[in-house]
């Protein structure tokens, strides 16, 4: 019977190492992290400018606008999820590593969510405030965006893995991911609207949580399979 050498890294080590690496890479280039956030704020600014400053109108469209802006910002940052690693060859090293690929993919997805999803969740009440949403709506925004952006990162990672290395992958990613993201958008925006109107938001948040759990269970495996295929 052979024993594993002591130097054999455990499952958690690979996950943590990759997560740290991605966070560190982002920390060294803070501009890349800020881009989706600024994009999010700018898209949310476009709507009042285009539709006029009536408070009633803004209050009605606010939840939907914030959610659409979050969806687009997530899509924007998804393009780069595997791109840099694909270009410098480290993606192939990940594919060759002894660590299970779904776990590594999950680490990359976590890093992506921490860098592009979580900031949106944090500043979403501010955007909501500028749309004059009532307090319940302001609370519902981060409550729905938290599981919502996590699901977007997980599902979007599959799309990013399918399109990595394609010359026309940029526009294609939206075509692949946005239809899949529609349930998240429907429940997210609708729940915020209902909460702003004084209704309970538990149902929608539960649904988004359930969707997030389902995506957490299945998406890393689909993403890993897609990465293997696009790097064959």
């Amino acid at each position, binding site marked *: 019977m052979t024993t594993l050498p002591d130097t054999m890294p455990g499952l958690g080590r690979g996950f943590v190492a990759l997560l740290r690496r991605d966070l560190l890479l982002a920390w060294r280039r803070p501009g890349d992290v800020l881009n989706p956030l600024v994009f999010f704020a700018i898209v949310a600014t476009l709507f009042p400018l285009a539709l006029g400053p009536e408070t009633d109108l803004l209050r009605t469209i606010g939840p939907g606008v914030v959610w659409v802006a979050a969806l687009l910002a997530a899509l924007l940052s998804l393009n780069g999820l595997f791109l840099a690693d694909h270009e410098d060859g480290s993606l192939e090293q990940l594919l060759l590593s002894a660590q299970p690929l779904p776990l590594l993919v999950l680490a990359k997805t976590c890093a992506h969510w921490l860098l592009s999803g979580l900031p949106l969740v944090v500043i979403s009440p501010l955007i909501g405030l500028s749309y004059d949403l009532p307090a319940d709506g302001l609370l519902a925004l981060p409550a729905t965006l938290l599981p919502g952006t996590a699901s977007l990162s997980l*599902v979007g990672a*599959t799309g990013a893995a*399918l*399109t990595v290395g*394609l010359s*026309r*992958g940029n526009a*294609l990613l939206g*075509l*692949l991911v*946005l*239809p*899949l993201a*529609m*349930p998240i958008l*429907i*429940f997210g925006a*609708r729940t915020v609207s209902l909460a702003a109107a004084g209704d309970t938001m538990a149902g929608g948040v539960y*649904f988004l949580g359930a*969707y997030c759990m389902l995506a957490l269970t*299945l998406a890393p495996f*689909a993403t890993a*399979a*897609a990465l293997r*295929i*696009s790097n*064959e």
Partner: protein
Amino acid sequence: MWTFFHKLASPPHFYGLAGKFIPWFAAIGLPLVAYGTWAGLFIAPPDYQQGDAFRIIYVHVPAAYLSMLAYMVMAIAAGIGLIWRMKLAHAVAASAAPLGAWFTFLALATGSIWGRPMWGTWWEWGDPRLTSELILLFLYLGYMALRAAIDDGTKADRASAVLALVGAVNVPIIHFSVEWWSSLHQGPTLIREGGPAIAGDMLYPLLAMIFGFSFLFGALLLMRVKSEVLYRERRARWVRRLATESAGAA
């Protein structure tokens, strides 16, 4: 059974088999559609509420049903191709996608034409089934776009198969989430407790259309798979022999 399965996976064998099935499918499907069209337009009585406008269901319902059936065919074939690395299954999935997209488009177009006199609008966002059908169309388009964007044949097969499976998991979720909106659409008429809520004169043409459309879909699918197989196997010896034989006969 397994030998049958293995034989089916062989392109020349399938090519011959599909050629035998197509005339049968067409021979069953075409008369059914012809009867359904005639009976639907002339025999079925006008609806007491909707008048003659309801007759569009004879195209709308089969198209909507096939749009979902085609997605199932595509996803199952893609799964088989991905798991057992069966090239023929990928050819089936690739051939089913454009057909499914067209049926989806047909269902959307007839639905919106029907909606104009009934709801007073061409498009009703509040209707969940119309909206989920639109999302289904986007899923088809995404699948075809991904397949078109990848030059390498096997890679395109496998990548789009992953997408088809991810989409198949999402279709029920999309349907449910859109249903969560308020509904304007007619409730189910055919499949429900207590039997169909539709008069026989109206029902039989509809059933004929559904079965006729299904058989025609089968025939069209096999035709597309046949040409897809020919294209994919264009360098194989049996295809060359086929080509020289038909050239010699002509």
